[in-house]
């Protein structure tokens, strides 16, 4: 579905990604783990078109994303829930969701589940009680739900999730991971970036380990969970 072919991305003179190859098949949950500054967020921002790669290519359903503006990447069906959630603080909850659906109507509706506001509310009932509330007044967990809901409003084929568990209470973390699984089971392919490596690898079909902008390891989620190097560096065993 999505192929990253030797992607290099840099911030000014600092090379953040070196020769990244990632492949995601339709229906998968793929996770990208690694420590702070390894290049996980950079990878997602490059896919979304916020950062432009220096070289390499990205092919999504046969089409290159390399020179595509971010809003056109969304139009192709790739949505991102960015790090820190980035809820529009002075838009209401329902306006935040509407903005997620901004691209709908400009592109072919995908088959399968049509996510609309009602369905987002089914997934996250708490949001329904807060439709008129400003996004900035929600709690961290609610904001994470809203951020995921907002991305789902665009009917994504591929959902990019950047640290969805960051800063959330443990009970909320397990709820978010459960929801990610549900969304995937409804046919949405997922690329998950996480520091919580154990939970992410358990959930994922496959994983990549990123270190200093280079992919060190890749494999099935389960295999990585039992890999000695991964255990030592990321799982704290």
């Amino acid at each position, binding site marked *: 579905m999505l192929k990253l072919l030797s992607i290099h991305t840099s911030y000014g003179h600092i090379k953040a990604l070196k020769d990244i190859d990632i492949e995601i098949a339709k229906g998968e949950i793929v996770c990208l783990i690694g420590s702070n500054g390894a290049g996980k967020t950079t990878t997602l921002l490059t896919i*979304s*078109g*916020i950062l432009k790669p220096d070289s390499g290519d990205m092919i999504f359903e046969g089409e290159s994303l390399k020179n595509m*503006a*971010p*809003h056109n990447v*969304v*139009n192709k069906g790739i*949505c*991102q829930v*960015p790090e820190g959630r*980035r809820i*529009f*603080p*002075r*838009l209401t909850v329902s*306006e935040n969701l*509407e*903005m*997620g659906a*901004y*691209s709908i109507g400009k592109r072919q509706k995908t088959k399968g589940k049509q996510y609309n506001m009602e369905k987002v509310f089914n997934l996250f009932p708490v949001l329904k009680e807060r439709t008129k509330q400003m996004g*900035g007044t929600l709690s961290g967990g609610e904001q994470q739900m809203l951020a995921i809901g*907002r991305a789902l409003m*665009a009917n994504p084929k591929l959902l990019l999730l950047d640290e969805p568990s960051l800063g959330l209470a443990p009970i909320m973390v397990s709820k978010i991971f459960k929801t990610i699984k549900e969304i995937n089971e409804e046919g949405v392919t997922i690329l998950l970036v996480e520091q919580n490596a154990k939970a992410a690898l358990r959930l994922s079909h496959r994983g990549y380990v990123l270190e200093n902008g280079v992919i060190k390891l890749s494999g099935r989620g389960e295999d990585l969970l039992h890999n000695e190097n991964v255990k030592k560096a990321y799982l704290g065993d």
Partner: protein
Amino acid sequence: MHAGTLCIHDNILTFLLKFPAMLLQQLINGLTLGGVYALIALGYTMVYGILELINFAHGEIYMLGAYLGIIFLGLFTVIGLTSVSLPLALFFTVLLTIVVCSAYGFAMEKVAYKPLRNAPRLSPLISAIGISIFLQNYVMLTQGATDQVFPQRFGDSGLQFLNVSMTYLQALIIIVSGLLMLSLHLFIQKTRMGKAMRAVAQDKTMAALAGINVNGIISVTFIIGAGLAAMAGIMVASYYGLVNYYIGYIAGIKAFTAAVLGGIGNIPGAMVGGIILGLVESAGAAYISSEYKDAYAFIILIVILLIKPAGILGKNTEEKV
């Protein structure tokens, strides 16, 4: 002594009789002026809201609007449309002026600001001043340095009530300004594109990730701001009857004051700020001295910056996420 007391009584009596009338008169004059300031101020505040940039060339769009109004209406007078139907001629004048000014606003952003989007903040400011000087001189060279006369006089006919008068033109300016502000408010609050404008103002990266064409929204902001300034330009040209190539400078600075007064970046704030500025200016001209007409705006600016720098409806910067 007896005669003297009578005289004072007389004065007080006439003052009391005149007082509400004069106040009402200044209210009407002030609203006319304030509506125009508010329309220009909206352009400043919308652009600031989205780009955190003071578009100091915005006043020139207003000046261009005044000139284009004169040119188009003059053209319609020559081809005889004004004698067939004045309202129709005015309608097309307004329409064409707004379209051309919006094109100027659009081009201004693409030429002067977009290439500097990630530059230090001083660069677009200097670029704005450059565009402003360029447009002034461009108009001076093509239209001459002398005053141009608006081709249509609307006269002083209007509504008269006791000693208070409101010309039809004043009424029209107040109504048109009010309607434009109301439509803008509804556009920003209710439409998909208006909500996208607010989203872009709050977080450009996230807006892009949500599928919003951020550059498109920025262009729309400049187009709307320029359209409102164009309308203000035509109305002022018809109100005063005379325009000059430098009218954009002082009007621009006053409208900027209005935007700061209301809280820069805040749309209802620009409306409120513009109207307050208009009211203060006419009251000051009537009750204190018209010599200092232009000074009142800046006195207000200084007072506001001392007492409430965020402006009347402005949010404190901590809310910027």
